[in-house]
């Protein structure tokens, strides 16, 4: 017998779920008698949403604003991302100037806006230019743009350059050669990733609303705080309908245009329907102009900066005296807990419900709710029965990301070859073990690789549950923001960004390891 324990692929997938053991110990003492009735009436209200026309009209208006902000923010991020992505591509710089160094420089600069969560962007911009619709749009466009830029430049630099060199050798000018050789190959990847970003933008726009930037998120938070659960659920179901329609529409387009699924960006191929894709993109422009008008976005108003209180003479001694190790530790603990919950629970729940056919549909619905329901609202809801702190925040964040990971896992399960699972079931294995051995084996490594990426997203996102209190950097950041302590704020954002960048590096390494071992 070998002495070393070497967990095999499908087992690795379940290991993160071990986090349930410490949680089972730590959770009961956190419970306080309080609001079980409130949780009960919240759950009951799911089947009895308010159908009052006045309520619905106001919710629909909020939904319109949220969707509009998401659309504009997303469109802005695409434009930014395309420009910056081309600007940070080594291939492009090498073709134009012969040196790839400027690309490297721009790439590093872009890491900063990417590392800062859209909520921090939103709250900072709110302080700078006051409340206006453009704030949420910009808050989404800036970090998303930097993200799109990174993915795009990675894509660009991964393309073979032989076609490009041939065109150049034949005397084509550099820009034309670039566009002809790389453009068509890039389009499917960009559209696939772009579609995914639109889903993210809708979630972000809802989240920003929770923090007062307008739209349905604001309505949801108000109804939750005033315990109007019936109205809250009307809003949730509306949002769910929009989100599911959006997701279905995007996957339909993806199938129609034959582009690879999310994060399988390496495959190349000229889309047969390039003209259709370009037309769809062109149609976005007037649509965005219309939406912008409807929302009352006024670019000129962005220039009216408000005077920053006391940035000059900062109180750096107080800033340095913040309990930094505890803040950073809390944030990291929150991230690890939430990531393990999300990554581990998705396969575990699928296994649990495997023998019951319809239960998968139930999970699908639960995960959809997890995706659309902003984590800070889950956290507020949990506060009815739990004390504030890292664990409560981790539950909220974990649930949200479970929704994202669960959907991905289910999509991959449906896309893998059922042969091995069928063979196991045919040999008399139960449905759970057949799923574990027969399908999860093949999925484990790509799934964990995506989980590593998600952990990095969760670290960035940990700020959004800061309002629960005592969750590390996030709570401190929101506190400093509300007391206009700009010196603290700057330090906190810097530390956050550093952490996120380190996390990004770590998760990149983990991802490459998982995928290489596959």
């Amino acid at each position, binding site marked *: 017998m070998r002495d070393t324990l*070497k967990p095999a692929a499908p087992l690795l997938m379940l290991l993160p779920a071990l986090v349930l053991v410490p949680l089972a110990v730590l959770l009961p003492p956190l419970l306080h008698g309080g609001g079980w009735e409130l949780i009960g009436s919240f759950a009951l209200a799911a089947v009895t949403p308010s159908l009052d026309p006045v309520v619905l009209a106001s919710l629909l208006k909020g939904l319109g604003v949220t969707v509009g902000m998401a659309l504009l923010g997303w469109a802005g991020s695409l434009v930014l991302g395309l420009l910056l992505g081309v600007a940070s591509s080594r291939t492009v710089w090498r073709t134009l100037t012969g040196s790839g160094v400027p690309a490297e420089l721009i790439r590093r600069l872009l890491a900063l806006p990417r590392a800062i969560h859209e909520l921090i962007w939103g709250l900072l911009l709110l302080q700078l230019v006051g409340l206006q619709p453009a704030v949420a749009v910009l808050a989404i466009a800036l970090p998303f743009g930097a993200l799109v830029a990174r993915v795009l430049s990675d894509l660009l630099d991964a393309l073979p350059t032989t076609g490009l060199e041939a065109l150049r050798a034949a005397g084509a000018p550099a820009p034309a050669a670039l566009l002809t050789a790389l453009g068509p190959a890039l389009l499917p990847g960009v559209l696939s990733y772009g579609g995914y970003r639109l889903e993210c933008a809708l979630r972000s726009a809802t989240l920003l609303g929770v923090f007062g930037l307008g739209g349905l998120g604001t309505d949801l938070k108000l109804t939750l705080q005033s315990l109007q659960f019936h109205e809250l659920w009307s809003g949730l179901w509306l949002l769910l309908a929009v989100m599911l329609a959006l997701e279905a529409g995007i996957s339909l387009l993806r199938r129609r245009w034959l582009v690879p699924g999310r994060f399988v960006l390496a495959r190349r191929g000229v889309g047969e329907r390039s003209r259709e894709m370009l037309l769809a993109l062109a149609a976005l422009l007037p649509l965005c102009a219309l939406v912008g008008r409807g929302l009352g976005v006024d670019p000129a108003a962005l220039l009216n900066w408000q005077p920053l209180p006391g940035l000059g003479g900062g109180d750096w001694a107080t800033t340095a005296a913040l309990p930094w190790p505890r803040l950073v530790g809390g944030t990291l603990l929150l991230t690890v807990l939430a990531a393990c919950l999300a990554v581990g629970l998705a396969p575990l729940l699928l296994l649990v419900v495997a023998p019951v056919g319809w239960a998968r549909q139930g999970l699908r619905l639960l995960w959809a709710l997890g995706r659309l329901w902003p984590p800070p609202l889950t956290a507020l809801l949990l506060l009815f029965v739990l004390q504030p702190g890292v664990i409560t925040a981790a539950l909220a964040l974990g649930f949200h990301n479970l929704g994202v990971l669960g959907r991905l896992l289910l999509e991959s399960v449906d896309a893998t070859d059922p042969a091995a699972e069928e063979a196991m079931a045919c*040999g*008399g294995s139960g449905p759970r073990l057949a799923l574990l051995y027969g399908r999860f084996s093949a999925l484990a490594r790509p799934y964990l690789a995506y989980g590593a990426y998600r952990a990095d997203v969760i670290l960035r996102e940990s700020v959004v549950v800061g309002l629960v209190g005592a969750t590390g950097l996030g709570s401190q950041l929101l506190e400093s923001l509300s007391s206009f302590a700009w010196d603290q704020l700057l330090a906190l954002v810097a530390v956050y960004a550093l952490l996120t960048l380190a996390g990004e590096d770590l998760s990149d390494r983990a991802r490459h390891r998982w995928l290489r071992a596959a």
Partner: protein
Amino acid sequence: MAAGPPTAVLALRGICVRGRERPRLEDVDLSLGPGERVALLGASGAGKSTLLAVANGLLAPAAGTVLWEGQAPARSRRGRRRQQARIGTLWQDLRLIEELTVQQNLNAARLARWGWPRALLNLLLPLDTDACAAALRAMDLDPALLEQPVTALSGGQRQRVAMARLLRQEPTLLLADEPLASLDPRLAGELLALLLAQAAAPRALLLSLHRPDLLDGFDRAVGLKDGRVLFDGPVGQVSEALLADLYGGTPPCETP
């Protein structure tokens, strides 16, 4: 043929399976006694794979009865799984789990009888090394291969590992759907001999075959044409004329 004796390992009576355009199986009777080795012959599309899918429980027939060791398919999930555990299928694409080691693959055949703790332990530790090594040896493989990932094996080794996995399952009914189709003649002969050697009473073997030249080790042959049984008798009675009829005049396969 009338209904098989109650002790038959597999008894199919009046099996019908509907297809999109024409029936895939029509009124098929087939019975396998303990220790019987039966070859299933027929052209592509004759219904061999469909018949095997009915025999291993993957496909429920539209009409007719299936009896495994005299028992109808159990209604309870647990009872059905116990029945399935006694049916071993050698798949044409082998269906090994690529991410696992040889030993884990062999033990995967035990999952029907193991509970969760052992199923999970198998993913962590080498379990039942002796039994696995014996299964490999029975297939003329070196037990040193146990710790190898199955991706590291050659095509012939993979075939043998799949057969060793079948042994680990300890089935009473062995089914194989053209397991020799993609092999060179020498290897096909070797593997068929190994498989036939495993089919001793009480175990029975039903194997679909594209090559009448390999019939020697079998007791009986069953010929299917257009979803119906055209012939069911001792291998010695398989004549050129019958083969010509089964394969519709075209030569059954290019004999090397």
